């Protein structure tokens, strides 16, 4: 695991690591860095699609509930108006759409990120506490096919890191 002092050096190092053929790589930073997920070879997330589906389910769920309640479970004739007076059902349908989509966005994000996760090996590095302040870390994981303790360490040393450490599992 290598420590850097600025987002620029981290992104440059991550690019070089990817070009060197490492795959099981992760980078840690105190701020979101737009360029970084490409640099570590991460493809786009499927979260937006999940949110779309969540919203659609919420909306159809809301409307179906109103339909079922108003026309089937508890039909109430108010001044001869139709039982399925759909324009009056739109506000609740809309709110349910938003609710479904928002819940999917938040819990989908946590789920894809595998959070909550109380333990992770990176926390074994005492300097890692700085990852939430002003330091940037690049981690090549031991599961990588190219991983070799000495060679990988030497490679990380070439990237202009502030410090390189080995983190126990």
């Amino acid at each position: 695991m290598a420590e850097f002092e600025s987002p620029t050096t981290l992104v440059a190092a991550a690019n070089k690591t990817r070009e060197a053929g490492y795959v099981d790589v992760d980078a840690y930073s105190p701020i979101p860095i737009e360029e970084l997920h490409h640099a570590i070879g991460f493809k786009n997330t499927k979260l937006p699609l999940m949110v779309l589906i969540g919203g659609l389910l919420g909306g159809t769920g809301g409307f179906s509930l109103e339909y079922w309640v108003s026309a089937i479970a508890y039909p109430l004739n108010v001044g001869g108006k139709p039982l399925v007076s759909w324009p009056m059902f739109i506000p609740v349908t809309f709110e349910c759409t938003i609710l479904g989509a928002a819940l999917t966005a938040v819990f989908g994000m946590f789920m894809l990120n595998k959070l909550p996760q109380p333990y992770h090996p990176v926390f074994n590095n005492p300097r890692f506490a700085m990852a939430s302040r002003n330091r940037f870390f690049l981690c090549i994981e031991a599961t990588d096919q190219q991983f070799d303790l000495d060679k990988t360490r030497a490679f990380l040393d070439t990237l202009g890191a502030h410090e390189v450490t080995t983190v126990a599992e």
Partner: protein
Amino acid sequence: MAQSNQPLAERTEPVAGSGTPVVIAPGHTFASVTDKISSIVLTQRTPIGWYLALLTAAGMAGLLLISLSYLVVKGIGIWGNNIPVGWAFDITNFVWWIGIGHAGTLISAILLLLKQTWRTSINRFAEAMTLFAVACAGIFPLFHTGRPWLAYWLFPIPNTMGVWPQFRSPLIWDVFAVSTYATVSALFWYVGLVPDVATLRDRAKGKFAQRVYGMMSLGWRGSARHWHRYETAYLLLAGLSTPLVVSVHSVVSFDFAVSILPGWHTTIFPPYFVAGAIYSGFAMVLTLAIPMRAIYGLEDFITMRHLQNMAKVMLLTGLIVAYGYGVEAFIAWYGGNYYEGFMMLNRINGPYWPQYWALIFCNVIFPQLLWFKNVRMNVPLLFVISIVVNIGMWLERFVIIVLSLHRDFLPSSWGMFRPTFWDWTTYVGTIGLFLTLLFLFVRLLPVISIFEMRTIVPEAKVQEGHGH
């Protein structure tokens, strides 16, 4: 962002030539931003003033507890509302609080989508304000039912009575809109907090604080994959909250507009309620931000630029509200409806004329001072204006609700509303609850989003040419 790159000798003074104050004072780095904001929370010594403030607020909140307990024992007869004025302080306060909440969502969602980086230092506590305001708002309709333990009747839950809610009623829309709004606001706020709570976890000295922040941060470690999904989720939430916030106050206005009462039955209500909500919400953000930045020395982060921008938003939304008043009066005359015309004249010249004219003064006349730059740069005066607008927006809801109800179609059913002691204590009590929650929040969680502040310091930008 452009401004923050320029070296400046004077903090918060206008940038030479551009006339615009900076969003963040120069010289700040990742470390200084982190340390400054987290030190408010992580300091070992709690200021004595905080205890005094919390005690006062909690005392007021205690008043709420007493008022509501008494209400449950005696029934809503302890309030002054009675036919024909069936809605009075309760719904006035409900709409007022919900409106205040809207600025939080506007700042966090709409300004994020518009890439207004100045929102960064005010969005966190504005969101907290939203959450607490919605909590206060919810109390009123809940207890106005008189039997709050039967509030589940409002939800579509199978029950032994075989009765279901009436989905054609705006009051049911309100239940869905407000509960969705409360849920989404809470999620938005919490998601924003996760990386900051991780910072607190890493920097807290006490074992207990480490544990609690550790649990709240869910093991956040700032992984690039996580950040990417996080940003996507945050942006989507912002995109979802934007139509939501507009819909919530539109639905609140439907409570009135869908009825046939003169003074309520107008199509201008949804846009004018939404503008009014943003107006009062920004006023409340200013009311809270001005003392907070002075007490905690946050002038570097909440600069004159923020105060000015908020003043401008207030001026704009205030004009929309003024337009709404104008159109209401015009249509009352132009529509030729006898009752509508009477309602308007009664507002101007009826028994509640002082409230109506106070409303016009607070919301339309006094805030015109904001046209002047000297006024927008004058912090104490801005504070006064924000308080006046808060009062004005409360009066607006009072005028809409009570004045439309107290003159029924038949003079034999006319009445007057006078607030009782318990009307006032309930209202003051919710202010106490709001402030209590706010003081606890300021002490226990970062009032400014640390990670978003880091993104606006100059070093956050990845320099071109190194990357590829």
